[in-house]
């Protein structure tokens, strides 16, 4: 297993040498969304607390780094951590309120959506951070300002982030923390009865997940050199974050990555195909159909099924 992971990493590391510019940008997206999915997976997959407001953390992270860079000249490499920290604070607040008041299932979903929407409205009304127009970052091409002439730099950052998040989740699975989270997902009442500190663990998962998601915000801001409230805080981005681990298999180590490898190229292809004919939104229909199909036929996601196939092929 370890060899397989290292092998996969090695293949991904040399991949940019053979990719054209378009394929490279698709792969950056695959890795970026795999990273976001992995971050979400901690709280949404392992702990089973369905958050549909993770866009809030992307937005907070991106805005923090961009505003710090614009006003104090702080390099986004440090700003990224500050953004992650602030996102973690927000995650802590949402988690504290949600878990302290015992919101479960749909109520928790709605709480996260509401917080993300509040962030979006505040950001679009706060002139200091650009208001509804958003923030634009001047392109200088200076790596110290996290700007690159060459897209391959983004590829390696995305790869590093994905590897980092996956390593964290891998380590988590092997420690008491991860096992407790899974137990909480399966039967919270039983966990409480057995003396598992459910509140603390759910909160920890939320904070960790929002910190990692916040890092992605800076990546997003600097890769596209812009931040719009509707794009980074909106519900559509939250759905993008949630759907990959679900399709791949929520609460599995490889789920978000497999999900992203399935969905991102599919989204890009259908966007390119249907976009030519003026059929906008078609890739979202594909998402919708896939989501329905996964819920009905593969509620565990793709990874467990793939695992079974592999085991059958190689006994």
């Amino acid at each position, binding site marked *: 297993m370890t060899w397989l992971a290292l092998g996969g990493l090695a293949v991904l590391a040399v991949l940019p040498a053979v990719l054209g510019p378009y394929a490279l940008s698709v792969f950056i997206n695959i890795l970026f969304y795999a990273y976001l999915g992995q971050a979400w997976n901690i709280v949404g997959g392992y702990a*089973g607390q*369905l958050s549909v407001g993770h866009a809030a953390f992307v937005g907070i992270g991106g805005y923090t780094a961009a505003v710090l860079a614009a006003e104090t000249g702080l390099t986004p490499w440090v700003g990224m951590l500050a953004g992650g920290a602030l996102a973690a604070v927000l995650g802590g607040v949402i988690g504290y309120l949600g878990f302290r008041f015992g919101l479960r*299932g*749909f109520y928790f979903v709605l709480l996260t959506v509401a917080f993300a929407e509040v962030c979006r409205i505040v950001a679009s*009304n706060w002139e200091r951070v650009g208001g509804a127009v958003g923030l634009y970052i001047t392109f200088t091409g200076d790596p110290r300002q996290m700007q690159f002439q060459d897209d391959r730099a983004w590829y390696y950052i995305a790869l590093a982030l994905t590897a980092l998040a996956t390593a964290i989740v891998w380590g988590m699975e092997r420690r008491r923390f991860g096992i407790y989270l899974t137990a909480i997902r399966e039967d919270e009442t039983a966990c409480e009865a057995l003396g598992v500190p459910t509140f603390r663990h759910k909160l920890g998962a939320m904070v960790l997940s929002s910190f990692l998601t916040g890092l992605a915000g800076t990546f997003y801001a600097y890769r596209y050199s812009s931040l719009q409230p509707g794009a980074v805080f909106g519900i559509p981005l939250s759905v993008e974050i949630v759907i990959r681990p679900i399709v791949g298999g929520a609460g599995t180590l490889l789920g978000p990555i497999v999900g992203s490898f399935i969905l991102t190229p599919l989204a890009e292809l259908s966007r390119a195909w249907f976009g030519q004919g003026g059929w906008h939104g078609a890739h979202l229909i594909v998402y*919708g159909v896939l989501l329905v199909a996964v*819920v009905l036929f593969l*509620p565990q996601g793709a990874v467990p099924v793939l695992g079974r196939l592999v085991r059958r092929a190689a006994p």
Partner: protein
Amino acid sequence: MAVGLTLIFGVMRVVNFAHGDMMVWGMYLAWLLAARAGIDPYASFAVCATVLFALGWGVQRGLVQRIVDAPHEMQILLMLGVALILENLALLLFGPEPVRVRSALGALTWYLGPLYVDVARLVTFVVAVALTLALAAFLRRTDLGRTIRAAADNPYGARVVGIDVPRVYAVAFGIGAACVGAAGALTAPVLPFQPALGLSASVVSFNIVIIGGMGSLLGAFVGGLLVSVAESLGAVFLRPSLKELVSFSLLIVILLLRPAGLFGRRTP
């Protein structure tokens, strides 16, 4: 329209994320009927309600019924998928530009002393109240309404006394969808709309239902009034673009302090 949502949730504990998109379909249907057949939306809302009833019935029978016992999360995801399909199908078919339905009533205004009343809005309001009352009466007085409430209270018990629970669920889902269809057709002349409206409409109606109380018709109605008044006050005292902030803050407070809502009886 929150009344429709509350019915679906109250009866089946299924969260209908596609609610707003169903409303948008109701609106486009009214628009099609008005543009192609020249039927005024205040007459065609019955047609829209019927079509949406069929859609709701179909979604329930074909999709939701298969996973009615699955955890809540799966249902949320399923309905999210349906919402994505419906919204973007509307986008494909009707395009992203906002459209507006013209109604003969749209231009009329009554002056009542210092107040002036927009007749179209007044009619929309009156019909909405009438539909809510009719639905409440239906649930309390008719046999079918009683079976719906029975299945909501205790699905197992309802099965024991011989109620075909899946059929009742399908009817309830259909009625819920029909309510939004009617609501869509009725608001179409008052409000310009586009496919992207669906998602925000869903979120607004969730606000209303949570604030009013899940599964309570009165709660849905009062919640609707409360949210619109709070938003209007917010628009006056803060800034128009901040008005949504008020309703979301209200939602968060209600979620934390009284998750069953103002009129909800059971705790979640």
